[in-house]
C-alpha cells in the first residue's frame, strides 16, 4: 500500500499571552492508503492538533504535511479550503450539524460547493443516507434525532463527496455504548468496504480495537512506534 499521508518533522506550538506552549515536537508519521489508524493518548498529548494538521484546518509551526502527494502545510487559506472540500471528510465528537437544516440538507451542504445538479446531489445524498441507515430520517432535523443518528448524519456528510481521507475526532466520545458500537461498525465498513483511509482520535480502547493501526502520543511525541 502506498503512503497517503506523510507528516515530516512537524512541530506545533500555541501562544498563550507571551508564553509558548509546545504541543508537537518534531513529529513524523505516515499513514498508508486504506489504513484505519487510531491515535491514542492522554489529554493534551497533541492528538487533535495532529489530526487538525493532517486535515488542513491548522498549520504546523515547522515541518511538512503531505496528503496524496500535495504539501498542504504551505497552501494558502483559499487553496486549503478548496483542498479540504475535495479531499477530506470530517467527523466531530459533537457532530456539529447545522440545527436549522434537515438531515438531507446537512449532508447536501458539501455538495453545494460542487458543480453537481440538484438531481445529482439528491441521488448522492439519498445514497449515503441509505448507507448509514438513515434513509427514513432524511427530513428530520438534528434535534429530532438521537446522538447516534446525528453522528451517522455527520458521517454521511463526511463521505458524500467521496473524499480520499476521513478524519474523526473522538467520534464516539459523546455516545452511549450501543451507539458507539454502531458508529465504529460503520467506520469499519467504510474502511473495508469502501476503502476509505481513516485517521481517528480516541480515548476509548474499545474504539481503538477497530483500527488496523494504533499509534500513541505523549507530550507531543509518538511513543512505542
Amino acid at each position, binding site marked *: 500500500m502506498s503512503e497517503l499521508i506523510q507528516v515530516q518533522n512537524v512541530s506545533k506550538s500555541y501562544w498563550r499571552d507571551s508564553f509558548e506552549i509546545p504541543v508537537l515536537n518534531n513529529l513524523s508519521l505516515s499513514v498508508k492508503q486504506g489504513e484505519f489508524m487510531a491515535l491514542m493518548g492522554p489529554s493534551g498529548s497533541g492528538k487533535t492538533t495532529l489530526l*487538525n494538521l493532517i*486535515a488542513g*484546518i*491548522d498549520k504546523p509551526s515547522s515541518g511538512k504535511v503531505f496528503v496524496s502527494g500535495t504539501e498542504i502545510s504551505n497552501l494558502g*487559506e*483559499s487553496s486549503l*479550503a*478548496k483542498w*479540504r*472540500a*475535495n479531499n477530506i471528510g*470530517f467527523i*466531530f465528537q459533537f457532530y*456539529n450539524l*447545522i*440545527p*436549522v*437544516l434537515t438531515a*438531507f*440538507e446537512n449532508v*447536501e*451542504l*458539501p455538495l*453545494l*460547493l460542487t458543480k453537481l445538479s440538484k438531481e445529482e446531489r439528491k441521488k448522492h445524498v439519498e445514497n449515503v443516507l441509505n448507507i448509514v441507515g438513515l434513509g427514513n430520517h432524511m427530513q428530520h432535523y438534528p434535534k429530532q434525532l438521537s446522538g447516534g443518528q446525528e453522528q451517522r448524519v455527520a458521517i454521511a*456528510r463526511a463521505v458524500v463527496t467521496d473524499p480520499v481521507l476521513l478524519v474523526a475526532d473522538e467520534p464516539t466520545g459523546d455516545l452511549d455504548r450501543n451507539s458507539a458500537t454502531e458508529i465504529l461498525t460503520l467506520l469499519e465498513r467504510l474502511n473495508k468496504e469502501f476503502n476509505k483511509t481513516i485517521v481517528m482520535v480516541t480515548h476509548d480502547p474499545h474504539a481503538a480495537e477497530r483500527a488496523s493501526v494504533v499509534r500513541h502520543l505523549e507530550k507531543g511525541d509518538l511513543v512505542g512506534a
Partner: protein
Amino acid sequence: MKVFKLIFKNALRHKLRTFLTILGIMIAVIAFGVLRTVVTIWDSSVDAASANRLITRQSVSFIFPLPYAYKEKIKSVPGVQDVSFANWFGGVYKDKNNFFARLAVDAETIFDVMPEFLITPEELEAFKKERNSCVIGADIAKQYNIKLGDVMTLEGDIYPGRWDFIVRGIYRPQNKNTDDTQMLFHWQYVDERMKIESPARTGLVGWYIVEIKDPNKSAAISNQIDALFKNSSAETKTETEKAFTQGFVAASSAIITAMNLMSFVIIGIIMLVLANTMVMAARERTREYAVFKTLGFSTFHLTGLILGESLLISILGGGIGIALTYPIVAGFEQAMPKGFFPFFYIEPITTIMALSAAILIGIIAAVFPIHRTLKTKIVEGFRFVG
C-alpha cells in the same frame, strides 16, 4: 437546498429576536419617512417658487403694509413685466382649525403673475366682474365640498366683521408642488369696505408680486425698486420669491434642523440594534461557521451568509416600514388642522432614502460579524464556548 434558504432559516432561528429587530427597523423607517416628508414638504414650498418673480415688501417687516400707490412706480422699472399684489386677510372659515391662506389680491393681475394657478377663462372673467367673488384652490373645494356659486362666509379678525364671498372660480394646480389651498378675493372689495369702517387702513397692500422678464437681472431690478422708495416712510425690500419663501421657512429652521437631525439619529440607533442582533447571531454560530470553513466554504460564502441575513432583516423591516409610511402619512395629514400644509405627500426621494438607509443599515450591521467570523481560525471556532 439553496443558500438563500439557509439565510432565511438562519434569520428565523430566533423568531422573537428577528421579529423585534424587524419591528424596530420598521418603526425607524416610518419615523424617518414621516420626518423627511415634513422636511421635504417644508422645503418644497421654496423649490416651488418661480425664478422670474420678485417680492417687494416693507423693509422692516413683512407684517407692515405698503402703499397701493407703489404699484405703478414698480411697474415703471425697466425689466419689470407685470406687477400684482396681495394682502393677508386672516379670518376664520367656519372653524378656527380650518387653516388655509385667505388673501385679498389684485383680481386683474394675480392670475397673470401666478400662471401655475390654472383657471378657465370663463371663471376668471366671472371673478373679475364681481367685486364680492372669490376663487379657491381645488383642494379647498374638495375638502369643504364647495361648488361654484356657493357663498363662503369668513369671520374677520384682522379685518373685523362678517365677509361673504361668492365662489366664481376654482383653480387647479399646475403641478404637485403648486399650492391649491388658497382663497383669493378682491382687494378692492376689502379696501372699499375699510374706507367706511376704518379709513386709516385703506390704500395699503401686504406685498407686491413683481414679474420680471429676465431672472438673471433679479438683483439689479430689486435694487432699482428699493431705490425708488429710499428714505420714504415705507422703504421696501425686494427679493426673489425663493428668498422671500426661505425667509418664512427660516423662521422654523431650528425645528426643521432638529427634525432632519432626528431622522438620521433614528437611522443610526436602529443600525446599532441590527448590528447587535447580527453580532449576537454570529457569536452564537461561531462553531457552525468553523464547520462551514472546514467543509470548504470560502470567505465569499461566509460573507454572503452573514450579509444576506443582515440585508434580509433590514430590507424586510425597511420594506414593511415604507409600505406603512404611506397610510401613516395620509393619517397624519388627516390629523393635522386642514390646510396646515398646502400639500402633504411622500416624495419619491424620501422613499429612495428610506430604502437606501435600510440597505445601508443591513450592510454596515454585517461588517463587524463578518470581520469577526473571517478572522476566527477554524480551531479557535471549534474551541469557542458561547
